[in-house]
């Protein structure tokens, strides 16, 4: 019984759960708590799968008398144990390979940017590199050491001084808060689930939420207007034909957020954190309950 409940819980957390939570627009008001909620949801799904396996195996099992049990029963326990180990191993492997892959990509890109970009000392941001390109680009290359923020001359030409500092503030917030770790974890988690049940939603939402967190950091420094103008100027800029086709996620929502007055949301974020804690505790509680 416990195994069935946990199995159903895992399915809900992986499938319909995200579809439902993605419609909670109020989460955009508390992006930090929302990221934690998505992380908690993923963790709870994992714990439920492991818990379901344990619940199948645990009842009435005395390890010392296992050798005396019938072979079929021993085999069943072995299958369950292998399943749990596989789930954990697959996730661990996925985390390691995503971290390694993005690590090599980043250091390769950083080496190239260091060779091609100019150091702009007037901006007082040590990792800033300016590429001599007319296409407006702005991004950060996160990393433990040697994070870079990359702009192009086109970006500097298209933006006013206040707008440039809003963009820089946004990018440094990404670097400071290690948002790349959040994104890498969700990419890894996404890859660890089998194709049939994996959902794009949590990773996508977290990408949007870390953008909102960085927007908030920039807004605190420069106010909403320069950031909003920079968003419009850079998003509306012409892109090379070959680069079309990638749907951007939520730039319109980010802008809408900037035009709303920031409101106190302590209760809301408290509630979301509580929900996150409940999600993580859920599988353990179900496992402990006598069902």
């Amino acid at each position, binding site marked *: 019984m416990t195994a069935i409940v946990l199995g159903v819980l895992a399915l809900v957390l992986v499938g319909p759960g995200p579809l439902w939570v993605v419609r909670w627009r109020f989460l955009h008001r508390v992006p930090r708590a929302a990221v934690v909620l998505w992380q908690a949801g993923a963790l709870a799904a994992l714990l439920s799968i492991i818990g379901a396996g344990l619940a199948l195996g645990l009842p009435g099992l005395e390890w010392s008398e296992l050798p005396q049990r019938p072979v079929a029963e021993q085999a069943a326990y072995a299958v369950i144990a292998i399943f749990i180990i596989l789930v954990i191993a697959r996730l661990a492997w996925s985390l390691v390979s995503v971290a390694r892959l993005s690590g090599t990509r980043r250091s390769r890109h950083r080496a190239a940017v260091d060779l091609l970009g100019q150091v702009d000392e007037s901006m007082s941001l040590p990792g800033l590199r300016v590429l001599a390109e007319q296409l407006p*680009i702005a991004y950060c290359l996160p990393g433990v050491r040697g994070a870079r923020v990359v702009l192009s001359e086109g970006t500097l030409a298209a933006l006013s001084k206040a707008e440039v500092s809003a963009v820089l503030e946004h990018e440094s917030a990404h670097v400071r808060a290690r948002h790349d770790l959040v994104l890498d974890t969700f990419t890894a988690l996404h890859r660890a689930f089998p194709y049939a049940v994996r959902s794009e939603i949590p990773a996508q939402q977290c990408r949007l939420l870390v953008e909102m967190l960085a927007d908030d950091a920039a807004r605190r420094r420069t106010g909403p*207007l320069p950031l909003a*103008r920079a968003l419009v100027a850079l998003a509306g800029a012409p892109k090379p034909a070959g680069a079309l086709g990638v749907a951007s996620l939520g730039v319109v929502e980010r*802008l809408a957020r900037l035009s709303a007055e920031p409101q106190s949301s302590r209760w809301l974020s408290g509630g979301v954190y509580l929900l996150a804690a409940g999600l993580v505790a859920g599988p353990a509680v179900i496992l402990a309950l006598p069902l």
Partner: protein
Amino acid sequence: MNTLGELERSVMDQLWSSPEAQSVRDVHLALTRNRDLAYTTVMTVLDRLAKKGLVRRERDGRAYLYVPKQTREQLVAEVMHTALDGDQANRTAALVAFVGKVSPAEAEAMRQALAELESQQPKLDPSDR
């Protein structure tokens, strides 16, 4: 000021300037025309560039010759490609972009939202632009 980044850049520029493979001596000679630089420094920098996968080392008798793996233009193209293109998931793995690409409809919605924001805060206008 000879920072490491600046040194790597001038060594790379020197390699890019000629279609021929160059030895440490060639690079050292070219770079010391207008500044003072130790031979071993040039060697170290070339070694670092090779480790980063930016230059290829070829054996020529007893010396090593160095060739850039890509032309400057190819490297620029690669950087711009990573910055602007690729599928979203892969791109996120390398870098975090300020904005993605938007459809014309989204661009229009954004302009409207901005106009609304600007009308809320007219007092900020003149000081900014």
